[in-house]
């Protein structure tokens, strides 16, 4: 009896419905990943779109050694790096992010927490590329260190070390700013 084709087989066969399923499944994750890297919602939407276009164009060469999700993250982060490098984007706190974010309820406590959180986020942007990516992938995307290593092209151990140094730098900065 013939087995039903897997998602990857459908994608490789050019099945547009399968493409759409992948977009539906991963578009939010890729959007938030790119937004954390490039800071501008408009750019993040463009990069998300380009991620899927690149992925579908090159799906023929994807062997499936890593998961589809890991591969999409690799493509998205490579696009982000190219974008940041070419545009020489100055990574600053985006006013829109400060103003439009949906925050927790309680007034004063949540405002303080929000401001501290934004400071932490601003400091996050100052980390080295690999440390920043390790922190973002672990904290916001719940990725295993093995997957993080696959995405940023290093070993699982190095991914842990990058995460640790990133977090340690942030902790020291927050301490200097009297937050902790």
């Amino acid at each position, binding site marked *: 009896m013939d087995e039903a084709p897997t998602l990857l087989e459908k994608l490789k066969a*050019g099945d*547009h419905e399968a*493409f*759409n399923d992948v*977009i*539906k499944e991963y*578009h939010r994750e890729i*959007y*938030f990943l790119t*937004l*954390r890297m490039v800071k501008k*919602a408009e750019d993040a*939407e463009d990069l*998300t*779109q*380009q991620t899927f*276009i690149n992925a*579908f*164009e090159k799906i023929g*060469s*994807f*062997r499936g*050694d890593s998961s589809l999700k890991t*591969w999409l993250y*690799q*493509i998205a982060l*490579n696009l982000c790096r*190219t974008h940041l490098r070419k545009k020489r984007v100055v990574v600053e706190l985006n006013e*829109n*992010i400060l103003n*439009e*974010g*949906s*925050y927790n309820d309680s007034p004063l406590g949540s405002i303080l927490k*929000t401001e*501290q*959180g*934004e400071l*932490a*986020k601003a400091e*996050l942007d100052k980390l080295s590329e690999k440390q920043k990516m390790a*922190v973002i992938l*672990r*904290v*916001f995307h719940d990725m295993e*260190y093995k997957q993080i290593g696959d995405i940023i*092209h*290093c070993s699982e151990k190095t991914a*842990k*070390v990058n*995460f*640790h140094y990133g*977090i*340690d730098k*942030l*902790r020291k900065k*927050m*301490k200097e700013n009297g*937050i*902790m």
Partner: protein
Amino acid sequence: MESCKKYELNITLLAEGSLEEPLRSETLEHIERCESCKGKYEQTLTLLGLVKSSSLPEPSGDFLDRLIKNVGREISKKDNVTRLASVRQRKLKAFAAMAATFAVVFFSVFYIQYSSRQQAPVAELPDKSINYEESVDIYFEALLSDNFVENSADDLSFDSYTGDTEDYIWIEEKLSDLESQNSNDLLEYINTFSEDEARDILEELGTEKQTSVPNSFS
């Protein structure tokens, strides 16, 4: 006194929840005994809470619809271009095959007649070198083709780069990434870059190391 240095990484991993036994118990025991490390552990917990609390704006309401539409359109557009190119390529190949056959027959007849009259002079070897742009193009296509099997990441070393552009560090990092891949992973890896980026890398390589173009392509 017990060294705190060896617990630094473990304290971070403990705070974010990925430290496994027996290191977890060992680190917890150390924290109980060491005020300084306990402080770091608590600060890291607070920090992770703060970082997680920073939220991002949702994508615009019609983002998914636009995304599906735009991606579908781009893919279809490129499918059509590929199909056209493939038809043109097939026609071109057929024409080239006919022309080659005709040329072989013509020159064979000509050669036989000519050599029967006098001894042929020693033919000058054609210049087989190809220019740099061709090398890069051919190399890039080779990387993307399914036939690419034998070139190793060693060919992509960048140690002879002497330029002073600000891109040096970026390129070096990319090359280090490339070198860390084995040849079987290279094709998949390079396909995670945009074409422009891959070309940037290969062009920079080609500038300094034209010899890295596989011999079979030159």
